[in-house]
């Protein structure tokens, strides 16, 4: 099956977008670092379930995001702690805390698994959002590939930023030397680097949805885009503001 075939789409969608989405779908279906292919697809499906979850809607308007008890509208294939995490990332992400991440680890979902789960959720969600914003149905999820997760963990990590260990700004070396250049690193680039492939996956999507790391240095007009940098940043800023994102 050919995924992301935009030949009959209502709008002229760039070929590099379709290519990047197809490439991500292949990675999504394959075993990751801490979840197998079937689990990664289940995480992706759960990111879609969250949008229609009655309990999430109730919790979103609750004063305390951790006091309300209930059951999510969910599919099978993931432990309860993972279901709750996926739903929270989609519907109430600004109230995730260090304690929540720590408690999840105590319940059996390691910080490494948490980071990979976040990576899958946000990648699939952003692709789905692209479709929804253009009035198109979401893409059929791929069939999982067999195999076991690699268990890969970077050699150089630090605990000085955020909820989980991350590769330090000067730590993109060895197997991770492709992640960023020595003179270009922000916290958001480091955020998912406990699972380097999670960072690589969102970077490849950002290249086509927004700008490449190199392109981010250009504050005028990227030749491959129809909107200039100010127009991009207005869109980015409004989306971030509605989501109440301080970063």
């Amino acid at each position, binding site marked *: 099956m050919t995924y992301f075939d935009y030949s009959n789409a209502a709008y002229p969608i760039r070929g590099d977008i379709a290519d990047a989405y197809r490439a991500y779908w292949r990675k999504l279906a394959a075993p990751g670092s801490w979840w197998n292919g079937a689990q990664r697809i289940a995480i992706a499906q759960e990111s879609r379930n969250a949008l229609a979850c009655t309990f999430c809607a109730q919790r979103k308007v609750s004063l305390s995001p951790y006091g309300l008890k209930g059951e999510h509208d969910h599919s099978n294939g993931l432990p309860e702690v993972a279901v709750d995490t996926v739903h929270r990332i989609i519907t109430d992400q600004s109230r995730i805390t260090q304690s929540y991440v720590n408690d999840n680890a105590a319940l059996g979902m390691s910080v490494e698994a948490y980071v990979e789960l976040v990576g899958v959720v946000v990648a699939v*969600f952003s692709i789905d959002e692209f479709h929804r914003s*253009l009035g198109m149905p979401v893409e059929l999820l791929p069939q999982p590939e067999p195999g076991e997760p690699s268990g890969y963990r970077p050699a150089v990590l630090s605990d000085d930023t*955020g909820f989980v260990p991350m590769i330090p700004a000067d730590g993109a070396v060895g197997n991770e030397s492709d992640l960023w250049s020595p003179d270009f690193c922000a*916290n958001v680039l480091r955020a998912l680097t406990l699972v380097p492939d999670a960072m690589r996956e969102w970077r490849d999507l950002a290249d086509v949805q*927004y700008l490449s790391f190199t392109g981010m240095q250009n504050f005028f007009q990227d030749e491959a885009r*129809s909107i200039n940098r100010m127009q991009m940043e207005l869109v980015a800023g409004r989306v971030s503001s*509605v989501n109440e994102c*301080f970063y």
Partner: protein
Amino acid sequence: MLRASAKINETDIDIQGVGGDVSSASQGIEFGSQLMRFAESVANRDSQALGASRQALLDVAGPLVLVDAAGVAANFQRMVRIADSMGIPYDNPDSSLGQQVRDELNLTAFASARHTLKP
């Protein structure tokens, strides 16, 4: 980044467009009000508003602009969730530009400000 790009482009913009003010969004930015409304309706997940804002942007700017704007909006639907799920602080909280934008848009009211502005 909007303020920085406007400064480099030597263009007067009104940062309140990020906060949802239509006339501010238009200042110095072509199709600014339509782009802002489109981004807002994507993030709010309001299907009725999204349909209307998509058509409005299409009417004034054309399909190429619409598709690229959809890409940016989708990208930042992802990025805000990465930042908040990982609890990362803003990189340069003491920069004058950052403080100015923070004050003008009242960003400290956001729950996720706690990752940067720790007591």
